[in-house]
């Protein structure tokens, strides 16, 4: 990976947290640190997200929240653990470009205190599996060499029998994971794409091959893996291109130890288009036929989505993976057309994945949909 933190800003109310102190110890010798009295950073220039500044702050709200989803499409019932926002990678399609109005790589240093409260909530809830992930608003591992999330989060999962914790990444920063003693109910997932999309659009991210080499290491070290083909992007020879990635999966990964694979075609808030055009004038990701989806986001026309999902399903089945394949934010109609079946509703999809987690980790879980 090719990024460097040039400056650390420590917000006033963040200074008391041990997490912040540990990060500063890690970085102080190499990076200038600024103490910031103001809790609000200046207005972000959408064209300059300032990915070289690390801002340490205490997040005042709830760190664990259900994925917002929308009622028009099936949502998997994921829980987002918001450990930070923005990401040092610079994928042209990244929704974070239009999602957050604050610059810098933001890391929430009160995560340990919040985890305590989250643990209590988990314990008091009845018979539910919590699939929790940290890779929605940032990459789960990109900043790990500096902030050491892997020293904090796996032990949380170990303590709470209802939690399945997923690290979602495009990076190869797995050293922290490898040195952690915990494996149970932890999923390490890689976001995958076609090799050409990875090279042209996922700026700063390692190649697909390197990601899969890291995944293989984790699998050999006893971790359960997941993969996310999201966003699937229509591009010249996309069938061959995505088949190449599945071929690489075949070469590096044992499919029987993969808990789930999600598929999701490129979708974005309409306001993102202008940002992408300005920040990445050479990108081809906007070439496809996008329509306004029922949730207001731009997405490919239905037959194209169906075609792409159907193709991926077939390829992954040829590789040996079929249990745990799901679509992210899709309609029942598209599920049916692409997969030949569909969960009844979002709860059905959630149960399906909970069952998969139960089966993988020996947790009590609902029957599959």
């Amino acid at each position, binding site marked *: 990976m090719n990024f460097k933190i040039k400056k650390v800003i420590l917000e006033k109310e963040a200074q008391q947290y041990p997490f912040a102190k540990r990060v500063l110890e890690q970085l102080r010798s190499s990076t200038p640190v600024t103490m910031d009295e103001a809790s609000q950073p200046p*207005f972000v220039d959408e064209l300059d997200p300032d990915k070289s500044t690390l801002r340490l702050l205490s997040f005042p709200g709830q760190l664990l929240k259900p994925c917002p989803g929308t009622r028009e499409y099936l949502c998997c019932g994921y829980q987002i653990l918001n450990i930070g926002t923005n990401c040092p990678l610079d994928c042209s399609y990244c929704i974070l470009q239009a999602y957050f109005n604050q610059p810098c790589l933001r890391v929430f240093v009160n995560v340990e205190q919040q985890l305590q409260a989250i643990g209590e909530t988990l314990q008091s809830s009845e018979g539910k599996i919590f699939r929790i992930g940290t890779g929605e608003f940032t990459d789960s591992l990109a900043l790990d060499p500096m902030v050491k999330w892997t020293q904090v989060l796996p032990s949380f999962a170990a303590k709470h029998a209802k939690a399945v914790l997923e690290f979602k990444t495009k990076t190869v920063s797995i050293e922290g994971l490898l040195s952690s003693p915990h494996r149970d109910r932890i999923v390490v997932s890689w976001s995958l794409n076609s090799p050409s999309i990875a090279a042209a659009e996922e700026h700063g991210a390692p190649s697909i091959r390197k990601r899969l080499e890291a995944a293989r290491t984790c699998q050999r070290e006893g971790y359960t893996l997941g993969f996310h083909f999201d966003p699937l992007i229509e591009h010249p020879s996309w069938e061959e291109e995505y088949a190449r990635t599945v071929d690489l999966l075949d070469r590096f990964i044992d499919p029987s130890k993969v808990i789930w694979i999600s598929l999701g075609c490129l979708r974005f808030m309409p306001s993102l288009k202008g940002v992408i055009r300005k920040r990445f004038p050479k990108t081809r990701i906007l*070439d496809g036929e996008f329509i306004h989806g029922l949730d207001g986001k731009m*997405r490919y026309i239905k037959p194209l989505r169906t075609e792409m999902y159907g193709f991926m399903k077939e390829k992954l089945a040829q590789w040996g993976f079929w249990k745990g394949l799901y679509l992210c934010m899709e309609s029942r109609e598209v599920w049916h057309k692409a997969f030949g079946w569909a969960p009844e509703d979002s709860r059905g999809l959630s149960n399906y994945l909970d069952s998969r987690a139960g089966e993988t980790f020996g947790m009590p879980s609902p029957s599959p949909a």
Partner: protein
Amino acid sequence: MRRRALMEFSRGQGIHLDLGKMADDPGPYTMSYGFNLDVLCESIRKVGLINSPLVARNQEGTFDIVSGYRRILALKALGERNAFCHDVTTVLASPLERLLAAFYENLATRKFNDMEKAMLLHKLQGHVGTEEILASFMPLLSLPSHEGTLKFYLKLLTLEEGIQNAVAVEQISIKVAKALVEMEEGLRQALFHWISVLKLNLNQQMKFIEYVEDIRIRDEVTTPEIFSDEVFLKVLENPRLNTPQKAKAVLETLRVKRFPRLAQAQQAIESAVSTISMPPGASIQYDPYLEDPYYHLEIKFKHGKELRNAIDILHPSRNLEALPELWTEP
């Protein structure tokens, strides 16, 4: 601005200015753009010049207009040779004071158009720091205190004159101007030409630019290459179409080029729906993007008998069963 100086405007020395020696441009202080002098000329013709312009002597020894640029142009247009003005060289000693006098005088009496805002921001840059412009002046111009906005307004001044005029009189929206300033000149001129010829309204302009840009980038062609398609020529030369109809036809042609599969599927659905004889007050609706898999049948009726009649008309229609699933590609 010093209060004293404000109070002393009227006591500036009265002078008769030789209009022949006054340049036609707004000079360093005034900020009028895209105006029509007709009403002002008529007013002066009828009742004379009520308020005297303010002028200040410059380093070349001639006068710059501090306030009253349009009045002076109107007097010139009326063939006047001299104008009675107040020389405020002493009471407004610095260029910033003169600029602010011009600004606040206008601010109190009228709205600035976007080109005038751009002119003022540009002029302020010569005297005031960016932070002060953002904090103090942009809110007065009803603009967000955002550096990106400031940069955009300054870029407006680099646009070609025709586009600047269109911005000033709101013939093109500020959103469109934002898109245009980022383009290279040839492309910008080509798009502006089409927008002007077709007299696209503000909503149409943005769609037009988006379609053309998407097609241009996707197909790796130039804008003239896109419009070299004879479909566009036929639309433009069709004597049975008025300008708004031509605008719609061009936009539709671009839409079909941008979304070929969607457009084809929409057309297939539209023709299937159009074959059904609908009773009065009834219609079949569907999501234009064909994302929602369901059609919706709407029947308006005043009483049960009307509903029965509507159903009786619909019931025997064989074409109902020919309605395809939404998104069945032909």
